[in-house]
């Protein structure tokens, strides 16, 4: 395999930077730091940044700067950002979750499948701090990880045609909250009353790539008081 990072042009106005080729928990903070530096470039030079697990897609304004110049500027930023230097951690976002069979349709099955009690399953999911690796799929949806090994399970063999809004779910090494109803194949453990996408705010969601997320178990009463619906 070739060396990293790689800066590859993919169309007239975009480069994709590959930082590594495998899932790495150091990546979100590192990519966030690269983004932070690109954010200081002159206004309008960069039209979009699309971070993901191991890469960053950089889209630039072809009318303001050439591909060669952008490539040079990107190599300089990456050269100046050593992974080991990333000390700053993303902010901690707490998301309340009502874990129960009525809010998490797969809670009981999942506990049985991995051979633990429902309370143990809730602890396994809510005790760790997760990292936001990527945003996408739908507004406010964050791909978070990494789950405790015991919780690593394949997606449902038959995806649901409708996952309720607020559902807190797991799949493979990842966890997420569905901000809006949508079809989906992740396993549902509970529901959060938190509003995860607000178009009046910028950024519209409470987390960015590199931020840390902790799920806080709440009771049914708290869930309903916070505006949760069943």
């Amino acid at each position, binding site marked *: 395999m070739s060396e990293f990072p790689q800066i590859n042009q*993919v169309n*007239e*106005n975009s480069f994709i930077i590959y930082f590594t080729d495998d899932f790495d928990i150091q990546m979100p903070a590192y990519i966030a730091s690269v983004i932070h530096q690109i954010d200081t470039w002159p206004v309008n030079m960069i039209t979009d940044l699309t971070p993901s*697990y191991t*890469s960053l897609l950089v889209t630039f304004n072809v009318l303001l700067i050439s591909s060669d110049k952008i490539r040079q500027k990107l190599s300089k930023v990456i050269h100046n950002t050593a992974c080991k230097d990333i000390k700053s951690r993303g902010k901690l976002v707490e998301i309340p979750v009502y874990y129960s069979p009525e809010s998490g349709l797969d809670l009981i099955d999942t506990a049985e499948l991995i051979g633990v009690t429902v309370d143990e399953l809730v602890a396994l999911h809510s005790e760790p701090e997760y990292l936001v690796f990527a945003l*996408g799929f739908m507004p406010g949806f964050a791909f978070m990880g990494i789950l405790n090994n015991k919780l690593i399970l394949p997606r449902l063999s038959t995806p649901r045609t409708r996952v309720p809004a607020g559902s807190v779910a797991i799949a493979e090494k990842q966890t997420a909250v569905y901000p809006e109803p949508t079809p989906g194949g992740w396993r549902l453990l509970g529901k959060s009353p938190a509003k995860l996408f607000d178009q009046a705010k910028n950024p*519209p969601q409470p987390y960015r790539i590199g931020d840390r997320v902790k799920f806080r178990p709440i009771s049914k009463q708290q869930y309903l008081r916070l505006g949760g619906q069943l």
Partner: protein
Amino acid sequence: MNGVKVIKPGVMATLQDWGRYGQRENGLSSGGPMDEHAFLWVNRLLENPPNSCMIEITIGLAAFESQVNTTIAVCGADMGLTINNKPAACWSTHAVKVGDKIQFSSARQGLRSYMGIAGGFQVKPVFASSATVVREHLGGLNGEALQHNDVINAESTKPLSFQRRVPFQFIPAHQKTTTLRFIPGYQSDLFEASQRDLFVNTIYTVSKRLDRMGCQVQGEKIHFQGAGIISEGIALGSIQIPPDGQPIILLKDSGSIGGYPKLGCIARIDLNKLAQCRPGDQIKFRAIDQAIACDELIEFYDFFKLSF
């Protein structure tokens, strides 16, 4: 405020400006016109700023009523436009008065038509754009496609005293087979040479899986031998190869990240041709050098005096 009332939206009509940029970091699509060429001509004919908001009409069967005296322009697929039941030319401006009925029947060729208005439609922007992305419920009027009885605000203006038309040499001719040039990239090198050859030597057919998010083409299946890839940022025009081997070209409303292997990206100015392709139309792909595609794009944007 008055403007233009939607009598019927037809198959689908959405409000679009140039697009919502700077929000991919938050996982949002850009939206914006599928056919940038027709879109930019509308604003140029009307002397509007090039990103002014207009209506993108898909297939046709749409009707509107003007509540203001002003000038409109229509470019793109010829949908048999009439104003008060009198035929009116496509790729042209038209003066309209209060009460005038603007009707689109359906396109014999092409898929999308653009109707703009002097000064642009006045739509409350969301993240600095009025582009409608229905999948995200963002932009337009309440994040939705246009509905019967919607009123889109626009100002009265002194109608242009003469008709402006797009010179004929700039009006794209319909092709039996559309050639789309692409810049090889992403996982291109991880496909076997035989599969890359198959892709450029096949005449594909546009399938019915065609919308603002993407366009699937049917033909020879392309196999990817490599391992699964980690989800990564999707550039406009990405040619994605899903497990069934039938290529999907990702367009303005596509998701911001995806995990299928990609052969590269369609040249942006060729996406304007794809925007007018209908199910059953034939497509051929040809590789192009990135630098050439880039020069052509800059020339295209310079022609329309874009600065963004």
